[in-house]
């Protein structure tokens, strides 16, 4: 059964929602439907609800498109009252340098620059293969508070575990 591993209410410190498994279209539908209900119940701040949801969709769609084995991990957790959304999937080692450079660029941009670059990217043709940071990462960067964060952890077989996360501000 495709479902979040639900541990505690969102907004509390710690890992609240975890999904670890195949990211299929059915999974995207099930997880997003359930997440909408959870956000409605646990996060009264409607702006935060929308931002969390938007980041989640971009992240899970990223895993769907780019994870070599179609598998990934999503974690939604509380961090001092704000909500952290993170995605992880395997990535070939030869992709690390390019992703580091592209995401590093976004990390260094101001919010205004991110919005401007996002708009430019909307007019670029759809990329058939991953050519670094697509529009999705710009969306994640604009919705989150603070710069987008990412890291790589070595795995076997010429792959690394690629993790991206950002925090969404939640009003008290």
């Amino acid at each position: 059964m495709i479902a979040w591993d639900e541990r505690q209410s969102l907004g509390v410190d710690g890992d609240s929602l975890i999904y670890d498994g195949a990211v299929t279209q059915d999974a995207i539908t099930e997880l997003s439907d359930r997440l909408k209900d959870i956000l409605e119940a646990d996060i009264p701040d409607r702006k935060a609800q929308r931002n969390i949801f938007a980041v989640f969709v971009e992240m899970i769609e990223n895993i769907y498109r780019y994870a070599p084995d179609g598998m990934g991990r999503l974690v939604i957790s509380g961090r001092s009252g704000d909500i952290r959304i993170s995605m992880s999937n395997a990535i070939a080692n030869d992709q690390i340098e390019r992703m580091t450079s592209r995401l590093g660029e976004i990390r260094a941009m101001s919010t205004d620059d991110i919005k401007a670059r996002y708009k430019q990217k909307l007019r670029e043709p759809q990329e058939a293969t991953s050519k670094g940071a697509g529009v999705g990462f710009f969306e994640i960067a604009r919705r989150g508070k603070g710069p987008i964060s990412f890291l790589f952890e070595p795995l076997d077989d010429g792959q690394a575990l690629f993790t991206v996360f950002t925090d969404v501000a939640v009003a008290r």
Partner: protein
Amino acid sequence: MENINIEATDRSPEVVFDFAANTFLIKGESYPEDVTTFYNPVLSALQEYLEGDGASAKSMFTFELVYFNSSTAKILMEIFDSLEEAAQAGASIHVTWCYDEEDDTMEELGEEFAEDLDAVTFELIVVEA
């Protein structure tokens, strides 16, 4: 041209294109399984209209989106570019961008699309949630 009437789903918007009345509506949420499969017929029909009756008619486009993903944003940009092109060539095109009062991101996104529209008239409207 045959009207388009697509019902909303969890992940895709309601689309109502009335070619006789020259009114066009996209409403709801948009993060469909396959953006291309969903929007290609919509884009094709729009193109056909703008090259035909739409070139001389007075057209009203209403967008009432609660959420859309970045793939959809690309489609919206394509739609707005087509509308602007048609309007520059003489078509009368009005766009209404509706957003929830509390949703400043949706308001902002509307403003960003509006930036590149000169011949198309654009209106931002608050709607009750």
